[in-house]
């Protein structure tokens, strides 16, 4: 019987050429979409092709993309973290609290990163140690983390951050290149190497494809997942520093709904929401696509909530269209 099954299944000893595979890949399609949006935008608005405007536009995605890289690894490993926006709220509140007592920029950065890590560890504890489903745990912590911010701040706000703290969100490294943009590139490279070039990355894919198989091949599944939640928390801390620095104030409602945009970015980047496949370059291009779409619509005076319709349609559309396509193709193939 094993013979019969292995014979009927055709296993090519060589896959398509690398160029062919690249051209047909999701990333190539996405890149084409990004270029198309860029061209359309530059025709519809005279303000689009301006180095400073484009530089401002990068703020639309840099903070979200930082989290999206860590989230991509988490989703590839078959888990999800819906509490990222609430971690931003809590980290930002903690930084604001410390700033009231005269904490300097280095302390604020350490506090932001530490709170992010702690929140990540909290999620990780429930998921990996207690073995609970990450969707429910992070829906719970989504309320809990932001809830703590509300308890601390109520309807108030923290202002009065040190002047040099503004560097992260408002600073420029060179000409129109923002600090956030540089951070985005560095983090993208780190995560790209981590996922695609290290044993850890292979373990992430293995866990997403078959956690039991991964366990039996000697991967410490729970430990890898624990680290992934820590990384997502840490990235939320980094995003919290950038966002707080850019806005210069903290309210408990900061970054509301950002988890949706982060997940959309990851899924748009070609990461399978069920785990097991995806790539960092895909997420990078998806970040640019989302940034360009929201910036282009913004130039056309489309209100934010209407943009969210596009984001929602994008999220469902990118998953639905390929499936619809294969369904139609399969129906046609039948006589």
């Amino acid at each position, binding site marked *: 019987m094993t013979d019969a099954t292995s014979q009927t299944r055709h296993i090519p000893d060589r896959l398509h050429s690398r160029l062919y595979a690249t051209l047909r890949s999701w990333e190539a399609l996405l890149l084409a979409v990004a270029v198309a949006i860029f061209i359309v935008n530059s025709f519809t608005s005279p303000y689009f092709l301006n180095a400073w405007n484009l530089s401002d536009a990068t703020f639309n995605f840099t903070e979200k993309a930082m989290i999206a890289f860590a989230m991509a690894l988490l989703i590839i490993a078959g888990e*999800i973290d819906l509490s990222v926006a609430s971690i931003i709220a809590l980290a930002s509140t903690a930084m604001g609290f410390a700033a009231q007592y005269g904490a300097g920029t280095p302390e604020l950065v350490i506090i932001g990163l530490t709170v992010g890590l702690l929140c990540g560890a909290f999620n990780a504890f*429930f998921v990996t140690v*207690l*073995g*609970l*489903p990450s*969707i*429910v*745990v992070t*829906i*719970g*912590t*989504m*309320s*809990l*983390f*932001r*809830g*703590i911010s*509300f*308890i601390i701040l*109520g*309807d108030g706000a923290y202002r009065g951050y040190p002047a040099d703290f503004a560097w992260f969100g408002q600073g420029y490294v060179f000409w129109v290149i923002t600090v956030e943009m540089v951070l985005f590139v560095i983090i993208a490279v780190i995560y790209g190497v981590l996922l695609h070039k290290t044993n850890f990355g292979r373990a992430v894919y293995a866990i997403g494809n078959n956690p039991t198989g991964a366990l039996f091949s000697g991967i410490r599944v729970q430990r890898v997942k624990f680290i992934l939640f820590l990384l997502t928390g840490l990235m939320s801390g980094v995003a919290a520093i950038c966002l707080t620095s850019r806005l210069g104030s903290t309210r*408990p409602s900061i970054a509301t*709904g950002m988890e*949706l945009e982060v*997940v*959309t970015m990851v*899924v748009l980047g070609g990461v399978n*929401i*069920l785990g097991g496949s995806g790539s960092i370059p895909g997420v990078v291009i998806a970040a640019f696509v989302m940034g360009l779409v929201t910036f282009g619509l913004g130039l056309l005076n489309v*209100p934010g*909530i*209407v943009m*969210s*319709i596009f*984001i*929602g*349609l994008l*999220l*469902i559309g990118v*998953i*639905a269209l390929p*499936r*619809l396509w294969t*369904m139609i193709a399969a129906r046609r193939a039948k006589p």
Partner: protein
Amino acid sequence: MLPRFLPVRETILSVAILALLLLISTRFSGFIAPANLANVFNDTAPLIILALGQMVVILTRCIDLSVAANLALTGMVVAMINVALPGLPIPVIIAIAILLGALMGAVNGLLVWKLAIPPIVVTLGTMTIFRGIIFLISDGKWVNAHEMSSAFTGFPRAAVLGLPVLSWVAVLTVIIFGIMMARTSLGRSIFAVGGNPHAAVYTGIDVGKTQFLAFVLSGALAGLTGYLWVARYAVAYVDIAGGFELEVVAACVIGGISIAGGIGSVGGAVLGALFLGVVKNALPVVNISPFWQLAISGSAILIAVAFNARAGKAKGRIILKSAEAST
């Protein structure tokens, strides 16, 4: 094992609610007066109705995060219909609300059924789309009390046998769902699909279709609640019931409905909703800032889900049948 376990968890939850009520009454004895308890129940009625719809969806291994947006969109549509046609009778309004809600549920259901997109992605997407549509149709404006007809706003508050209609709708929904889950083939298939989808297929149940029907039910209830909500508070705008979907999921999780599907009961969902309702109404009474609400429901979800997992922990995979038999 299942029927033996469920009443235990409902008893625990009932005891917890009673203990909570006693605790509050030591600080403020008026809280447990029958009239106030009726108020608390009435205030919790929308949560109970939505929790029942969510329960059905979660039982089939799905999740519906779009209920609050569905509620808000339906509420806005019926409010605008009421402004345009003040003479339209309330039963027609209710029918429109239920149909519109069911239609939005059907959109979720079709995407899950026909395209096999994970429910969390579908409903996260439709959640923002529905909210966006409210902005588009209302232009961001509010529909205020004075624009609505008195019949429209009066219906949920009209007292029948001492309780407002809103409460009676919740009671009726609980009864209908109790009968449906226990006595109809749809109810049984919902449990079967969540308990073991493969086995469900072999017994002739269409898994996708059952999930679709669950989404339609959840949507219909969200639509109905949309009308009741807007009429009760006599206002409709883009952000009504913002974040309410989390409270609905919380009620289900607290009520012992397993997020992995197949385990749960109508009684559990109702008690979970009542627990949250009592906490919410007690906070101002015992002088705790309402800003605590969010953190408390978050903690309640975590504690409940940790508790569920402990109680219903699956045994390890059996590798040696003989070894298992000998123990």
